[in-house]
């Protein structure tokens, strides 16, 4: 029997939303492989119960495999890789999300299993029983298709590309026995940085600002717009990150995050090729810039040529009206 592992993530005992995307991709893969006979096993790591885990059956999980260990309250790379190494030996594919955690864990598991790994997959198909994955390379300037010839196929999917899908499956809960492992790295804790918890790489809407904002305090305008939009994160160009106006965690582009939100609003950003690399896969792009020849308008679906200090407050106002 074929089985696909969907590796979920939790933080502070609560399942992370991106896990439903991982599960959607795993379900899609299961339905495409071997004429649809594969089962999807969602793997949940935690110290005890993880909030939201029992709902995974509603999103396509045939089984929910809970791996409980005192150390799994936090991310525990060595222990979790050891669990997945064992589970992976009898799986046909292991699906991760290409998040900070997934990017750390997927290659470890692949190396332990002696198989290759496809990172940041945005689409896939099955040809002759083998997974063929599409992934952006050269900062999104090209799309590479790779065939994963070894088994299990290990892949991580880009957040915001495989929407969470409600599919009712059994979602039978089983507990996984934890193999012996040697802990080489200890995660001692997390600290919240400035700027809220919604990450630009996962937010459904991103409002980004560049040097056109003139000074750090003016980012308040974008925070207000993001608040009005709801579910939005504030991003930044490298120019303003390097200037120390915004945290690197918010940087979008080649040496920052790659984002694929439903809506990306670029404010006072010229649209340098390295910035475009990080956001060109957004579904809808809006640009606000006073220079009508700014390269950002070449990728924008909708543009307003004008002074951001006039346009943005007005936009916030109109969005608020709409949301009322």
């Amino acid at each position, binding site marked *: 029997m074929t089985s696909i592992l969907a590796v979920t993530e939790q933080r502070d005992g609560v399942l*992370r939303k991106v896990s439903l995307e991982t599960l959607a991709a795993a379900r899609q893969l299961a339905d495409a492989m071997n004429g649809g006979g594969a089962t999807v096993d969602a793997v949940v790591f935690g110290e005890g119960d993880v909030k939201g885990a029992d709902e995974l059956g509603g999103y396509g999980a045939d089984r929910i495999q809970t791996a409980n260990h005192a150390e799994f309250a936090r*991310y525990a*790379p060595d222990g979790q890789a050891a669990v997945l190494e064992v589970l992976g030996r009898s799986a046909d594919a292991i699906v991760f999300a290409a*998040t*900070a*955690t997934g*990017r750390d864990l997927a*290659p*470890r598991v*692949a*190396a*332990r299993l002696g*198989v*290759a*790994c496809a*990172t*940041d997959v945005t689409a896939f198909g099955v040809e002759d029983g083998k997974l*063929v994955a599409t992934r*952006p390379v*050269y900062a999104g*300037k*090209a*799309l*590479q*298709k*790779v*065939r994963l*010839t070894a088994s299990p196929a290990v892949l991580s999917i880009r957040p915001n590309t495989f929407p969470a899908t409600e599919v009712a499956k059994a979602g039978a809960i089983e507990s996984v026995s934890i193999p012996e492992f040697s802990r*080489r*790295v200890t*995660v*001692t804790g*997390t*600290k*919240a*940085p400035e700027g809220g*918890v919604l990450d630009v*790489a996962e937010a459904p809407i991103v409002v980004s600002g560049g040097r056109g904002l003139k000074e750090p305090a003016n980012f308040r305008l974008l925070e207000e717009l993001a608040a009005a*939009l709801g579910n939005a994160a504030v991003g930044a160009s490298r120019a303003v990150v390097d200037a120390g106006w915004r945290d*690197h965690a918010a940087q979008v582009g080649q*040496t*920052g995050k790659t984002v694929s939100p439903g*809506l990306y609003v670029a404010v006072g950003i010229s649209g340098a*090729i*390295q910035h475009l690399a990080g956001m*060109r896969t957004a579904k*809808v*792009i809006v640009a606000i810039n006073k220079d009508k020849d700014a390269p950002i*308008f*070449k990728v924008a*679906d*909708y*543009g*307003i040529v*004008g002074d951001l200090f*006039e*346009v943005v407050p007005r*936009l916030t106002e*109109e969005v608020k009206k*709409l949301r009322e």
Partner: protein
Amino acid sequence: MKIAVCLKRVPDTTTKIVIGADGVSIDETGVKFVPNPYDEYAIEAAISLKETAGTGEAVVYSLGGDAAQETMRTALAMGMDRGVLLQAPGSPDGLVIAKAFAAELEDQGFDLVLFGKMAVDDYNHQVGPMTAELLALPCITAVAHLDVTDGTITADREIEGALESSTCTLPAVLTCEKGLNTPRLPKLKGIMAAKKKPLEVKPVDLDGGGLEVVSLELPPDRPPGRIVGEGADAVPDLVNLLRTEAKAL
């Protein structure tokens, strides 16, 4: 402190991508190659850790064709002591590269093996943690803040909406994130000295790996956009289009 850095030669980030005749790689005609930007943070970390320790060696490794030597000289000019090129053709997958590095680095007594978080050409984020697993060494990825004291590493990495702190002991593998430090520029004296530093070339045999590149294509062009209007007066039209046409609000 004995430190290794794995450095990849990659196309400059401004490169306009042209697909090669084989349909699976880029056309390298006229492309400028540079050290992978994330690997420069690794080089800077290696040099400054060695400087702080007062003794030791910082060795730069690369896997690829002979052209990688030029990139390695840049690292030597920054202050790395010597280089080893694992000479191999083609573009092997991450695990194949990791196996070659693991075989080379094993038993050499390195306290630290440093990588970039990812290579900006393939975006794989793999070779560092894979090499660590093969060597059974502790590994912290995407390190943005680092402290090494008395054989213990404390490191912070960016996770979504937070910083995650980890600790481990030497020897260890780290992959470097932007913000870790500011890479130094090679000085003229360093460039002159680099010409005389040892750069060993070792041919390696690689297996075929498990990732076959089927095709490389340019992404579909975004459909041409439009300027909705000028100034704040255009905002209601924009909001309307976002709501009704794009269904983004």
